[in-house]
């Protein structure tokens, strides 16, 4: 029911942890299932240069949190404001329709973490 990409991120989650003195934090919880993603980012100039993530919950949430860090490190803030749940879903191959909210949670974490940096 889950793609090999989802399973692989569960087995080897990327960029796990929390940055010291981050430029921004996105700590979001899904109020229905209590899945949680905590993203910390470092921004230098126009660029997001580093990110770490922690997550708890079902496989798509952990995989979405993990793949999110790969999608955002090294990208400009302007770029990141255009990132959507579809980008997260596509990076994971596919998510069951009932599970797209996990990708939404990852995007919420990103939006919250970079909310202090205005859109390009």
């Amino acid at each position, binding site marked *: *029911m*889950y793609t090999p990409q*989802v*399973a*692989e991120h*569960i*087995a080897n*989650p990327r960029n*796990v942890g929390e940055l010291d003195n981050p430029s921004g934090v996105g*700590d979001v919880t899904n109020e229905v*299932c*209590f899945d*949680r*993603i*905590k993203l910390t980012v470092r921004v230098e100039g126009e660029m997001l240069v580093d990110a770490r993530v*922690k*997550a*708890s*919950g*079902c*496989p798509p949430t*952990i995989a979405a949190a993990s793949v999110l860090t790969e999608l955002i490190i090294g990208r400009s803030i302007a770029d990141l404001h255009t990132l959507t749940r579809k980008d997260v879903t596509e990076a994971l191959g596919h998510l*069951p329709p*009932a*599970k797209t909210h996990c990708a939404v949670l990852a995007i919420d974490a990103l939006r919250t973490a970079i909310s202090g940096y205005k859109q390009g």
Partner: protein
Amino acid sequence: MKVYLDNSATTAMAPEVVDAMLPYFSEEIGNAQSVHSFGQRAKSAVEKARRQVATLINAAPTEIVFVSGGTESDNFAIRGIAEAQGHRGHHIITTKIEHPAVLATCEALERAGFRVTYLPVSRRGLVDVEDLGRAITDQTILVSVMLANNETGSVQPIEMIAGVVAEARGRGLDGLRLHTDAVQAVAKIPVDVKSLGVDLLSLSAHKFHGPKGIGALYVRKGTRLAKLLHGGHHERDRRAGTENVPAIVGLGKAAQLAFEQFDDRSARMREIRDYLERQVKSLIPNVTVNGDQERRVPNISNMSFEGVDGESLLIALDLKGIAVSTGSACASGSLEPSHVLQALGLTREEVRGSLRFSLSPFTTRDEIDYAVSTLGETVARLREMAPLEDLEAPQFS
């Protein structure tokens, strides 16, 4: 290493079962209803299997009806009594922790005008027999309570329930019948229809090293039961449809092996299951065992791992070759967390972090050692990744 710890979902067929079945696919091709010698040989194979199944549960061979599996067996028992006894009343009593084959059948009967009482269970997963007694009315025609639960393995006090049912019959409720879904109990604990005191009992071959797609319903002699499948006069006119001879032969052989090897197998499963729980508890902090730990089948352990999601654990273990199951939400495509663990009163977090390990007599200590060490690493990794600060992380190198 591949480690299959999901034997409550299904088991591997025993090699003896495969060998017994093989001739009935291509050499012994008869229809058991045919008069010629091909048919008579098939018939004799079916009747031998009927005796083997009857022996396993201490029934008479004429009380065994072959069906397509556990689901049909449950449907047949419940709908069959509802139709045969419906003129006496429209009330059925069951529990909140039944298998969907029972629950969904009862729900369908509710839509057809029956009233169904779903009894709660204690934290240990057991029905209160006094509750059950109080639920019986002069309209009650059927009590259906599972013998062993598929998620926790907890064993219900069916003998005591049979006592309550017998008492109600004595008060004049002669139409009242008792059914038990024994799909997870047969070949795990002693199952004797006479000492249990049931009128109907469901079993399924693939849960004890027989083939999929075959099961049986025990129907106590003299029990009126409406047909589910209409057609020819097969199975003493109880269930129409050409007998699935190879599968029936496989069920019979599996029943024979389960009967002959019962003591060895159950002792072995209990030893390995207890070893699994000891190892898990000693290596992983913040684990609880769910359900009654005394009154349960010897092959199931249901444990909750605090702070992690069962399905995430399941996926991670699967990548390492280890198969388990979970009562966590989303499992098996369902979005609802386990109705069984919820009925036990577990917290949402406990339900979420639950895994079911179900063993077979063929599970080895090496397999358990590999599974437990992989589980420990996985739980530690998922807990470390969780944005929770207060959980003690287990120490793994």
